[in-house]
């Protein structure tokens, strides 16, 4: 069971306290109605599936409840970094 560092609690906690919430750094368009079908499709459906470094969102659902961002290696399953929502991409 992986240990994940929650950037809000500033503690490493067991994986079962967390829930994965998909790819990170996909901002909801500010004016969805102004989006073309293709732009909206890209926002809604198109996701990366990298081998290696992956930016993803996690929620400390059985802890502080906060969503945060993480860089995880999809091959080794190791977390490179976790950081608060709103902070720049690492």
């Amino acid at each position, binding site marked *: *069971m*992986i*240990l994940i560092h929650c950037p809000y609690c500033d503690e490493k906690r067991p*994986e079962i306290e967390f*829930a994965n*919430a998909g790819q990170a750094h996909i*901002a*909801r368009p500010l*004016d*969805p*109605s102004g*989006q073309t*079908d293709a732009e*909206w*499709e890209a926002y*809604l459906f198109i996701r990366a599936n990298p081998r290696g470094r992956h930016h993803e*969102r996690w*929620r400390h*659902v059985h802890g502080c*409840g*906060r*969503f945060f961002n993480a860089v995880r290696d999809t091959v*080794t*399953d190791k977390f490179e970094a976790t950081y608060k*929502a*709103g902070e720049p991409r690492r």
Partner: protein
Amino acid sequence: MTGFRLETGGRVDRSQPVRFHFDGKTFQGFAGDSLASALLANGVMLFGRSFKYHRPRGLVAAGSEEPNALISVNRGLGRFTPNLRATGVEIHNGLKAFSQNRWPSLEMDFGAINDRLGMFLPAGFYNKTFMWPRSFWDKVYEPAIRKMAGLGDAPTAEDPDVYASTYAHCDLLIIGAGPAGIDAALGSMDSNKRIILMDEQDELGGGALADPSLWPWLERSVKALSDAPNVTILTRTTAFGYYHDNFIGAVQRLIDHLPEIEDMPREKLWRIRADEVVLAQGAIERPIVFGGNDTPGVMLSSAAKVYANRFGVAVGKALALMASHDSGWHDMFALAKAGVGISAIIDVRESVDSALMHEADRLGITVYLNHGVVGVNGRHGVRSVDICDYGNQQVRRIDTDALLMAGGWTPSVHLWSHSKGSLKWRDDLGAYVPDQPNENVVCVGGCSGDWDFGKGAIIDMLPTPKDQSRIKAFVDFQNDVTAKDIKLAVREGFRSIEHIKRYTTNGMATDQGKTSNLNGLQIASSALNQPVPDIGLTSFRPPYTPQTFGALAGHAKGALFQPTRTTNIDSWAQAHGAVFELVAQWRRARYFPKPNENMHAAVNRECIAVRSSLGIFDASTLGKIEVVGPDAAEFLNRMYTNPWKALEPGRCRYGLLLKEDGFITDDGVSARLAHDRFHLTTTTGGAARVLNMMEDYLQTEWPDLDVWLTSTTEQYAVIALQGPNARKVLEPLVEGIDLSAEAFPHMAIREGRICGIETRLFRVSFTGELGFEINVPTAYGRAVWEQLMAQGAQYDITPYGTEAMHVLRAEKGFIIVGQDTDGTITPFDAGLDWAVGKKKPDFVGKRSMARPDIVAPGRKQLVGLLTDDPHIVLQEGAQIVADPNQPIPMTMIGHVTSSYWSETLGRSIAMALVAGGHDMTGDTLHIPMPGKTHTAKVSGVVFYDPKGARLNV
């Protein structure tokens, strides 16, 4: 071979005889014996029948790597454990053990005919032969194969034992308490580290237990460690898996070795998080591959030493050794010292260290160098062996009753590999050893390849002058895989060891190839003419040895498998005969049958009561979220399809929630309590999901909004009071709220008191009748319910369950999200256009409702269905076709989502999702069901009181 107890020696307690049973016969051993050593001491050599060929099999090993001696232990009803290794079962008085995979008896096994038919059972035989005809597999081939090939019987009775589990944390976890593990513990003992030292055996020592010269050291060391307050010692504890971030799973066996079943857990699962791990799992000796190497009496040389020195048992009267490694010679010298008779040492090598030759000479042991065993005589035990002089190809016969194998050593890298540490091939050892770690872990001792057993030759199998295609030289004893099978796989084109493994099943038995993997690799390497590292290595996966389901499940079984959530009113429903159903994790009353009433009759009665007078319903399971803050209305306006900003405090609104893809995900009536405070309700099953979704948008998309979300589902008991007499019952019980129609209209909320308890009183209806939903603090739920029951008695107040609730809502065309929608239904598909704020610039899901596929014609839309025969209740889930006479497979245009008998209407009603359904009103559709195809006409979804006159009273 006939084993016997030596006059002296061993660690067994000869003053404590133990009587036990094997296959119904009674035997005697000593305290400290394993089942294997005790039976061996009694001259038993036959321990089981092999998996495929039903060949007689004896002990190969003395530890948990034993592939052959799988036995069952029966401790009474529900306490039957199959597939235990006899080497790991400690005997106790009254132990009842049984051999497996034989019929009618171990000595005379009908299935042994497979051995004679062996030439017809090569690798891949089952795959090749039983493919045709396909229909024969389930009824003919599989049952027959299962009967013939197999392991022990699975227990059928429920396990009455209790299994414990615990979490532990330590600075240093040492797995394996042989000399290397004990040294590691002693070395760190004086630090402040919290240390856990574990071993799968019943006492510490590992290999030292078979070396009397180390016993004084062992005794001193164990005492020192036992006295150290920072060291926890766990014996009979198997570390079965190594997971991320130094998380180790281990099972401790607590009572199986005791004569009486104590009132305590049978096993304990340890989940250990360690800062640093030391793996000291040792190494496993490798068998040698030659014809007849599975005959009972052919075993690992290190095992014979363990039986003699640890248990005081000789495995035979005249032992011969077949060696390719020095370690076997040392074992023979130790056996001679222990008083065991020696016949000869045979070594495949042309020369060995002169010190070994001198010692053999001194002990009077005959040595045959550059020789190999080419035949083993005897079926149920070794009588003699034929050896070949590779110099002149002369074969001679040697009398012996036990043939030992010393084929070198395989480091136990199982847990290291679980942790994803890398391995490197060492030509000198002919084995993989740990290379780069992936966690904070080190390997010490045998499992790191660090041993002083001497040198050896790396061979795939012994050369033989015989026709190789006619000999059975076993590689994997437990799965009956021979060298021939592996060569056949290579001939048939398999190249990767992963494929060879699966085709031949080498290493796929319950021992996961502990004794077979490396020999299999060597044989494949020779057959492919490629070095071993180029062929790869199969993965090691948990568990290291088989573990019980009980240990892994722990307390999570029966009622504790997952929590059952109950409301404060649940105990009343229980006491009044409710029939329950599970909704998500909630236990909800489905209906309240009177004596001799079936569900149909009860539901009809409950529905009529609500429509004609008064019903009462426990709605406490509804999800509830308190939304508070200056931007609360703005937040809800962005989340829900409806407009929220203009909603006045004191009023309610039906809210429809979409996901960003435009499809309905939840709904519920919510109330505005104040300018900055809302009381949301969600579906029973959707509460957690909706809160998570709202938190997601609030935290990550709109962090500028000043809003707080709090789950209040369990803070309120909710009682729905529904029916024309609802107001009359409430009036005398409510304080501070004007209940009149003018002051308290439909879709409003008021705060006050009921029965003296503070309440949030909603005037809402999921039935179409005048209705109220009374929210009170959870602890008062049942008390208020009972007051309402007493007050409502004059109106024959009737408790109703979820089944009647479903009928009542369907009569009004109210949808259930997840039943009438399926995650692909938009508000327009569901006929809920009215709930979408047309003027709102944005809300979650709005943009998606303009996607090309969402606006295209022919989408499935929610409609009502009225069967032509009003007594036919369609099956929910039934498919719908436009033309019943079209050829099969028919084009299905939709399906029935809700269907009930409506006692109020005196006919059946149904809702359905039908392609283009909104334009089909009045059309006849066809619903094929078992026995008959029914016809129904498309209608609107509101079957009762379409104008809502009954609500606004």
